[in-house]
């Protein structure tokens, strides 16, 4: 296939970027509007404004203060809860998925192939299917209204990331594992000191995806955490809805949503190189 001219490629990419970035920019614009203009923007009365007429920077402080029933407390609680849950889930997913991926890639044991197929099959199950059985299970364990239902499953691996780790670890020369055995390491030591450091690109993908997924997760915290002081940021944003489900302060919702999104954007920028490298490697060798 004949390659496209560079300027045309750039134009195409720029046009694509505009399409993807426009909603984000629109959020920024609405978050800086006055309540009246923001409401009008929502209903489309004044068309779509591409620039705030009179930027209201105070909207951000107001939005965070108004999250939850007590000024600032709701936001700080939700932020702390999100950080705790997300950190635990990221650590749990990376550790368990890499360990299981390593076992599938390197250890010889009876039934390995069958279990691997079974594990891959679980990827076909939509989350909604297991939601009610899991809720009943966690209720039986007395875990409702604790973060355990959100954090503990992460320590049992994620099928997709296990698959990614396995494919990556299969590329690691066997002799490295053997050298570590001669150097005195057992399987756990080999995983921790040799395999995990080599899996950095996969770990970057796993951590970034898991972070974004958990940080933005609405369903899990909504189902398992009922008290306001336990809610995460994604659920706390819901407090901007009025009792009828409508939006009175859309500018505040947009401001709070942008603050909520900020860690994901920063993380992606920080891990971008590893992330893209890992995805490309997965595409070529996986």
């Amino acid at each position: 296939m004949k390659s496209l001219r560079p300027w045309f490629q750039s134009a195409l990419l720029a046009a694509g970027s505009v399409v993807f970035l426009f909603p984000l920019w629109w959020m920024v614009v609405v978050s800086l509007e006055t309540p009246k203009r923001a409401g009008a923007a929502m209903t489309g009365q004044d068309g779509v404004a591409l620039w705030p007429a009179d930027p209201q920077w105070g909207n951000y402080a107001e939005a965070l203060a108004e999250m939850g029933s007590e000024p600032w407390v709701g936001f700080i609680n939700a932020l702390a809860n999100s950080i705790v849950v997300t950190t635990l889930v990221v650590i749990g997913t990376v550790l368990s998925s890499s360990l299981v991926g390593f076992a599938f890639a390197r250890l010889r044991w009876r039934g390995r192939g069958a279990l691997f197929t079974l594990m891959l099959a679980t990827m076909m199950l939509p989350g909604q299917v297991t939601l009610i059985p899991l809720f009943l299970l966690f209720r039986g364990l007395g875990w409702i209204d604790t973060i355990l239902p959100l954090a503990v499953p992460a320590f049992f691996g994620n099928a997709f990331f296990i698959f990614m780790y396995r494919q990556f670890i299969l590329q690691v020369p066997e002799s490295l594992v053997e050298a570590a055995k001669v150097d005195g390491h057992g399987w756990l030591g080999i995983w921790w000191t040799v395999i995990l450091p080599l899996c950095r690109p996969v770990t970057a993908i796993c951590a970034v995806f898991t972070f974004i997924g958990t940080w933005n997760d609405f369903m899990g915290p909504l189902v398992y955490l009922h008290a306001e002081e336990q809610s995460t940021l994604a659920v706390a944003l819901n407090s901007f809805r009025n009792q009828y489900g409508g939006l009175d302060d859309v500018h505040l919702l947009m401001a709070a949503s942008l603050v909520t999104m900020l860690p994901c954007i920063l993380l992606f920028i920080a891990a971008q190189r590893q992330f893209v490298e890992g995805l490309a490697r997965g595409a070529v060798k996986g």
Partner: protein
Amino acid sequence: MAEVILKSVGKVYPGGVRAVQGVDLHVRHGEFIVLVGPSGCGKSTTLRMVAGLEEISEGTIAIGGRVVNDIAPSDRDIAMVFQNYALYPHMTVGRNMAFGLERRRRHGSLLRALLSPAYAAERRTESTRIEARVDEAAGLLGLRPLLQRMPRELSGGQRQRVAVGRAIVRDPAVFLFDEPLSNLDAKLRGEMRTELRILHRRLGATMMYVTHDQEEAMGLADRIVVMKDGLVQQIGSPSELYDRPVNRFVAGFIGTPTMNFIEGDVERDGNGLALRWPGGRITLPAGITLATARAAIGIRPDTLAPVADGPFRGTVQSIEFLGDRADVLVESSGVRLNARVPTDSARAMREGESIALGMPSVAHVFDGDGQRAT
């Protein structure tokens, strides 16, 4: 004493494939022994069984007088150098070399060092000792300037030296080398071969080395073990293997260019025996006994020389000049004979012309089963 004794050692893979059978070998303390053979002959499997990286299906392996069949690789007092170096890519050269010792240290816990000053002092002493060992090995191999580099920043030869250095640091009873030079170019391979030989003399350590390159084996070994199809064919010094190969396989495998074989029927010749081949009749050395009707004479290419009239008359197929010597391929009565002759002698020849080669005084006779006739 770091002896390695293999008694009736065998390896059977799941599915019944026999990779190694009945290997009996006594590697003496300080000996450099090379296992050589074609691909799939079981040499690497044998070495890996000594290392503990393959389970031993049959027999016993003892290192330093202790049977190690059920002992983990790290507890066998061995160090191994792998074909692809197996350096940890995420560690510096220094850490790669220290890694095995770090694992063995008795005061390794950082947490305990923070809690107990006495423990911290022991830990520091151990760290100093490890650093000294790494520095000593690095000095021996000229690796000191590279200690802070990552493996990806090194050339193939440097990586190989680091792999050897990592083994030396451990000060093992036995060094195991699994085709360590096969990823290097020919020039570097030659240099590393010499370095390894010097290193062996300096360390005086027991070394077991696997290669498929018989020249490498001849250059390095005190004794060579030739293997084929999982069986040991012959164990001996390079000169023993070269001068008195026990069968046609060893005779053909050892020596470059490979030995010429002339096959024929055995005939009575007065009190002795002779070989009838398409080119005529060759009297076999006196005292030879043969129980088979067919036999073969083996002649080393460097013992064949052009003569005015000899038993091997044929056409020169090709001449390859190698410097002071030349390899001449002569086809005589359907048999291809390689002769390694002085360059001056080869210059007088032309491809396509007819020449005669004389019967050398040293020739090897093998019976119809390929065994050396006595």
